[in-house]
Every structure is written in C-alpha cells, then in structure tokens.
C-alpha cells in the first residue's frame, strides 16, 4: 500500500528533483532570449504591422496546447498498459498546463484578430477548434476531480483521453468543413515555414523551445505535487485504519 517505497515514484522524485533547476533555467533563458529577440529586434511585417510580434506567443502556445494533449494521451496509454502511477499522475498534472496554453492561444488569437478582422471573436476554424480543445481539457480535469478513488479516476480519465483524442481530431476537420475560414491564406498561416522569412523564424523557434521547456518544467513541478498528494492520502488512510 505504501507508494513511497514503490520504486517508480521514488526514482521519479529523485530524478526530477535533480533535473528541475536545470530545466527551469533553460526554460527561462530560452523564453527570455526568444521573446526579447522577437519583440525588440524584429521588423514590422507587411500585412500585419507590429502585430506580427504576437506570433511569438500565439504560435508556441497553440503548438504546446496540442503537444500537451498528445503527452496526456501517451501517458494515459502507458498507465492503462503498464500501470505506472507516475504516468497517470503526469497526465493529470499536464492537463491544467495544456488548458493554460490553449487559453493563451485563444486570447492572443482573439486580440490579434481584432485589428486584423475587426472583431473580437470569429468562428474561424482554427480558433473554433482550439475552443473545442479547451472544452476537452475542462472535461478531463473535471472527471479527475469528480472521481474519488485515484486508480478509478486514472482509468476513467485515460479512457476519456483516448476517446477524446479521436473526437478532438475529428472536430478539427469537421470545423474546417463547417467554416472555410476567415483567412484563407491570410494571417495565421504564418506557422508554415515557407511563409515566414528567417528574420521571424529564428526567434520563433527559440520561443517554441522556451515554451516546450516551460511545459516540461511545469509538468515536473505539478507531477511531484501529485505524487506527494497521493502519498499523503495513502498515509492518512493508513492512519485511519490503525
């Protein structure tokens, strides 16, 4: 019953404890370098003027939003197949982070859209797909919170993550079908390498790296919290039995 003696969580706590300062340092460095470079040292763009600077937040956030969900899918599968508790807890820890990135993507997308399209919100396929993804994140987080037994919660949320992934994928294309999009070929295809000249591309890559490292840092921090929480629940349960 005692999970602390369980090899996996213990090794995770040790390894993550050692890694954390380094990952944090790298994340801070990459984000500062990327954002400062992009904000201060890149020119305005033809079509977008200075709003092109929003790209350094919007694109990495959107990419991490998808990546976080993918990570949750993979760790959920690992939990279902190999029953590593750390994996299930990592998925649980990643969800709010992914939701945060999704919200940043939506907010920056909306703010960017205002001067470009003249409206605060547009049911553009990309924005709509991310809004739907935000709902999937919310449902996943809500299910974890609603189920008392941690193993049951891990199992149910893992199944949800898998089914949700399929439907999130379907929704992406359904929404594209539903609305051919405000900007066919305009604004937000800037994440295609062909459309972005080097002068924006390089700081963007650094920002993306920064966001990835930020994600890793936050996952490590939050998973450690989850592991501690689980250990505490196990200890308290043992207290009650004794």
């Amino acid at each position: 019953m005692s999970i602390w003696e369980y090899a996996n969580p213990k090794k995770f706590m040790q390894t993550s404890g050692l890694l954390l300062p380094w990952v944090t340092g790298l994340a801070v460095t990459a984000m500062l370098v990327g954002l400062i470079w992009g904000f201060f040292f890149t020119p305005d763009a033809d079509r977008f003027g200075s709003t092109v600077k929003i790209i350094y937040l919007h694109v990495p956030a959107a990419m991490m939003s998808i990546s976080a969900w993918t990570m949750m899918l993979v760790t959920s599968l690992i939990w279902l197949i190999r029953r590593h508790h750390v994996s299930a807890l990592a998925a649980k820890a990643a969800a709010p982070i992914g939701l945060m990135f999704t919200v940043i993507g939506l907010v920056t997308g909306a703010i960017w859209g205002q001067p470009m399209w003249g409206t605060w919100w547009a049911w553009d396929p990309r924005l709509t797909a991310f809004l739907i993804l935000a709902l999937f994140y919310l449902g996943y987080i809500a299910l974890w919170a609603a189920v008392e037994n941690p193993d049951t919660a891990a199992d149910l949320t893992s199944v949800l993550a898998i089914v949700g992934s399929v439907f999130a994928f379907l929704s992406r294309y359904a929404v594209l079908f539903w609305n051919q999009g405000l900007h066919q070929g305009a604004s937000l295809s800037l994440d295609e390498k062909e459309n972005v000249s080097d002068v924006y591309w390089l700081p963007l890559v650094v920002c993306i790296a920064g966001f990835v490292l930020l994600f890793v840092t936050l996952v490590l921090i939050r998973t450690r919290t989850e592991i501690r929480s689980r250990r505490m629940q196990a200890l308290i349960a043992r207290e009650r039995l004794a």
Partner: protein
Amino acid sequence: MIPDLGKYAGAVAWSYVASLGLILGFVALSLWQARRMKQALDEVEKRQGKSDA
C-alpha cells in the same frame, strides 16, 4: 528602447501582458501548490515517524 508599435500598440501590448500574466500566474500557483503539499506531507510523515531520508 520599446519599438514603435504604431497603431497596433494596444493589441500587441495586451497580448504580451495577458500571456505573460497567465504564464507567471500559473507558475506561481503551481509553485505555491507544490510548497503547500510538501509541507502537508512532511507534517503527516513526521506524525507517523517516517522520514524520507
């Protein structure tokens, strides 16, 4: 030092303020939750006489 953002100054500024605000806020929240949990766990472990040497 701040580049001339022209007519889009508001949009760009708000994007950065909102995004960095969300990130910093979330990091702070995560760190605070981590510390609280560590303290709570240490308390329970001490009570039970288990240490994490």
